[in-house]
């Protein structure tokens, strides 16, 4: 698997550290136990398109969101996590 980093270009996967599902929303501190359960432990774990955080430790050291088919590892999209956060604001 090779990931096209928006800053560094196409790089081998061993330059990156995966860090689990992207797009999880941290609940408010006063949220219910079930909201926290959802956030900390429960995952969709889809066989198909899956957004996942990767840290480019061997390159630009930015956090990326890689959208990939978990059955084939075909990558559909790579964006910098910061850009996606700013766009959501």
């Amino acid at each position, binding site marked *: 698997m090779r990931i096209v980093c928006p800053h560094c270009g196409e790089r081998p996967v061993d330059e990156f550290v995966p860090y*689990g599902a992207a797009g999880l929303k941290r609940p408010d501190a006063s949220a219910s136990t079930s909201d926290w359960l959802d956030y900390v432990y429960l995952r969709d774990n889809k*066989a198909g398109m899956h957004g996942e955080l990767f840290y480019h430790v061997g390159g630009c050291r930015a956090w990326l969101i890689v959208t990939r088919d978990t059955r084939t590892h075909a990558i559909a999209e790579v964006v910098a996590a910061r850009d996606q956060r700013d766009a959501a604001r």
Partner: protein
Amino acid sequence: MRYSVFSLLAQALNGQKGWKPAWRDASPKDEYDVVIVGGGGHGLATAHYLAKEHGITNVAVLEKSTIGSGNVGRNTTIIRSNYLLPGNTPFYEWSLKLWEGLEQDINYNAMVSQRGVLNLYHSDAQRDAFARRGNAMRLNGVDAELLDRAAVRKLVPYLDYDNARFPVHGGLLQRRGGTVRHDAVAWGYARAADQRGVDICQNCEVTNIRVENGRVIGVDTTKGFVRAKKIGLAAAGNSSRVAAMAGLRLPIESHVLQAFVSEGVKPLIDTVVTFGAGHFYINQSDKGGLVFGGDLDGYNSYAQRGALPHVEHLLEEGMALMPMLGRLRVLRSWGGIMDMSMDGSPIIGTTPIDGLYLNAGWCYGGFKATPASGWCFAHTIARGEPHVLNAPYRLNRFDTGHLIDEKGAGATPNLH
């Protein structure tokens, strides 16, 4: 047919013409008392113990492919019970006890070989941690021996003891651990369950779980609707997908784990050795191939194949432990999809849906747990409540905070 030395001799004289298929290739009936989703080691073991221990024989095992095509045939065949935490030690020890009597129980040669499992330590801190683990095991009646460097050297003289970065200081040995021929476990349980009347339906994929008024009524399959009073899910790497059919989200991520076998060589490793400074474990199959494995690739995967950087990393670990490995060629490699749970421990128990039972989250540890997993899951399904051995593995431990985190890695499935 009962297998014995006499049946072997009779067939030898008969030109081997009288052997019958070991189990029937059944088609699903309209209705069962229990339907097990997943014809791997755990599903088949569950069916066997449901029939044998609880007298429930109106059971179907539904498998989307052929039985044993998943993780029961994709592991490195190691069995052991060297666990530290209270929820784990008794469960895995019960599993090892069941392994010890398995072949007589199912009348099938699974080549259970108690050749020992040796975990190496490479620092003073690791020795202390292993001493603690060994003591916890012995307090639970499990065998454990802490070996110093000289004792390890006598047992396995071919390691690199003076590796500048990872010198071997000693090891924790469980002599009752060892290896089992993994395919034979699937086949043996299938045959034993079949003989007690269980239907094993291959190429029969479950496509939906029907729930009415909070209770299961059956499953839709590629071979039609099958009505069921109770449904047990034992789908390993596909657990999240199957549970989603009933509207459940699980504390699980699916990851690929690779394993390897080298070309065959003369007898070399007569035990199981694990490298303590990384994640590498090796043993030798009876055919002569060295069987070894290591860490997950690290990202979510439903593809039963791994990536090359992880192969390179694993082989470097192997070379750090046993430099002679560099002279061998890797013959085959393969990947299995692990149901990595959020605390590194499995889930066997009830679910919020009546009649639906879950067996999942086995991480790397599924194979050694096969007998106890089936035994406890059968008890849970038959009685509607867990056995004391699997009560700590309930699904709602994540709500209540009663996690069993053997590695202390937290909610990071790819690190367990």
